[in-house]
């Protein structure tokens, strides 16, 4: 009896500790959320209030209009969806080549793809900007997404996943006269739901969160993406209009959090094998 009581108190203590730490970890988001619903005079009252007196939505409306968030969010959403599907498609195809085929230069090509892990955006950004501009793609969606479309990680992870699907399946498919492309689309892909979902989430967020490349390649207001919107909030809001700035920041982070919570299980698996990423 005494042991179980001690055990209970122990567990209670750990729960309390974890709840306190959880609040500290989430504090930046929670306080931003709180401030985003406060009018200016409440934000600057002393002591600062933790909870809004009433829900004040003007900050959201003002932030939305100030930096044209509708356009920025649509741009981000569009680019992220393209990158998500594009990367997945290219990764599935190349991963399949490395998992199910024997061919000359297989090892060399595989190494050549993996080597690109070592070339993050930042080490090639200067010539990449020159190159994409010379193609006439500066300030376009194509220029924005093209450099993100292929990745070593997606290829590598798809290969790893396809290798776990038994070889006998391919042999029997061959005997039934099923060609390599039909095998991929009718057997391998339907068997890969969770792996595809995980990579899709990670790849969506890679584009959604990208900042340096959009900042460099996009220059007109109607092409900019949501992360640039965060910076624009700081440069265009009247000084210290924290309610508005935090409201805008919350709008930009909501899709990130929704995508993360929806696909958390896959996301964690997806990054657990992630290499160098921009």
């Amino acid at each position: 009896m005494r042991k179980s009581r001690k055990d209970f108190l122990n567990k209670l203590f750990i729960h309390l500790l974890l709840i306190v730490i959880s609040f500290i970890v989430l504090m930046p988001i929670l306080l931003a959320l709180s401030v985003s619903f406060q009018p200016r005079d409440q934000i600057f009252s002393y002591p600062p209030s933790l909870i809004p007196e009433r829900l004040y939505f003007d900050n959201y409306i003002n932030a939305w209009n100030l930096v044209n968030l509708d356009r920025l969010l649509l741009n981000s959403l569009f680019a992220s969806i393209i990158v998500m599907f594009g990367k997945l498609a290219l990764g599935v195809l190349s991963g399949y080549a490395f998992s199910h085929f024997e061919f000359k230069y297989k090892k060399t090509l595989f190494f050549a793809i993996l080597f690109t892990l070592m070339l993050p955006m930042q080490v090639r950004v200067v010539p990449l900007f020159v190159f994409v501009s010379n193609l006439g793609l500066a300030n376009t969606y194509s220029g924005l997404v093209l450099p993100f479309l292929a990745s070593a990680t997606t290829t590598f992870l798809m290969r790893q996943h396809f290798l776990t699907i038994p070889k006998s399946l391919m042999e029997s498919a061959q005997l039934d006269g099923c060609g390599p492309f039909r095998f991929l689309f009718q057997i391998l892909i339907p068997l890969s739901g969770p792996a595809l979902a995980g990579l899709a989430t990670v790849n969506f967020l890679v584009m959604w969160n990208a900042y340096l490349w959009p900042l460099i390649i996009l220059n007109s207001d109607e092409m900019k993406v949501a992360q640039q919107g965060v910076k624009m909030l700081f440069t265009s809001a009247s000084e210290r209009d924290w309610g508005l700035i935090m409201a805008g920041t919350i709008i930009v982070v909501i899709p990130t959090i929704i995508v993360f919570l929806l696909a958390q299980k896959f996301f964690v698996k997806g990054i657990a094998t992630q290499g160098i990423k921009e």
Partner: protein
Amino acid sequence: MKEQDYDSHFSVPYLLILPSMIILTFFLYWPTVQSVILSLYRTAPFGSRKIYSGFDNYINLFTDPTYRASLVRTSVFVLVTIFGGLAISLILSVLVNQKLKGIKIYRTIFFIPYAISPTVSGSLWVFLLNPVAGHINYFLDLLFNIQIPWLTNGFFAFIAIIIATIWKNMGFNIIFFLAGLQSIPDSVYESARIDGANSFQIFRKITVPLLSPTTFYLIIMNIIFTVFQSFGIVDIMTQGGPADATNILIYQLYRDMFVNFRLGLAAAQSVILLILVLIVTFFHFKFVSKGVHYQ
């Protein structure tokens, strides 16, 4: 009827790889090679004039006190961020590595900051640390009666970007530490307890050494994160200031490229970063091959 054999489709694998290879060649390999070439030229701002200048860009960089200071500053930034970040993440990982009802909720909460972008992370922290309406100074004032000029004082601005970076990368570290902790068999802990070891001894003598492969991997990944991905945090929080106090290498590169328009000089900085990545990756591979023996 001829039997289907995938080896007979000898061109299929090349066709499958082709789209990836095209993108990687044009958008990854080619620009990297161009970085190296461009770094050997002096470029006129705005103009297309390029003059071959050998290693001048590199010599200029390494003799420039601003760049050298940035190099030292980045090293300190990386060291403090990694040491602080890994220590906090390890403690939190041990806490959420318990068999407890609802533990998954805490794990989810600890992972969330990693999904958030550097820009958003920077924005949240700028607010928290601002001296007038921010809550951090209010609590510090309440508890210790101090007011810290977070973003206007060089030293504290440097600390501020470290805090935001640690917060943002914590989730990544916890995911890996947690995986590492879960691969340590319970029997190891049990026998240590039977031998009379207390929790702290177990943590120091068993958990930490057995986690060293994970820790090493995380150090490598964190070097890359802090060197390259802190750009968004710095650009939102301090723009490299005040007085260059937070001007880390990646921010200096951006400045030389888009503020000063010195493309050759910026390319040389890219190449220096590339060499850094290659060194780090070399250590990584060396470690991985050792890790196999270790297992």
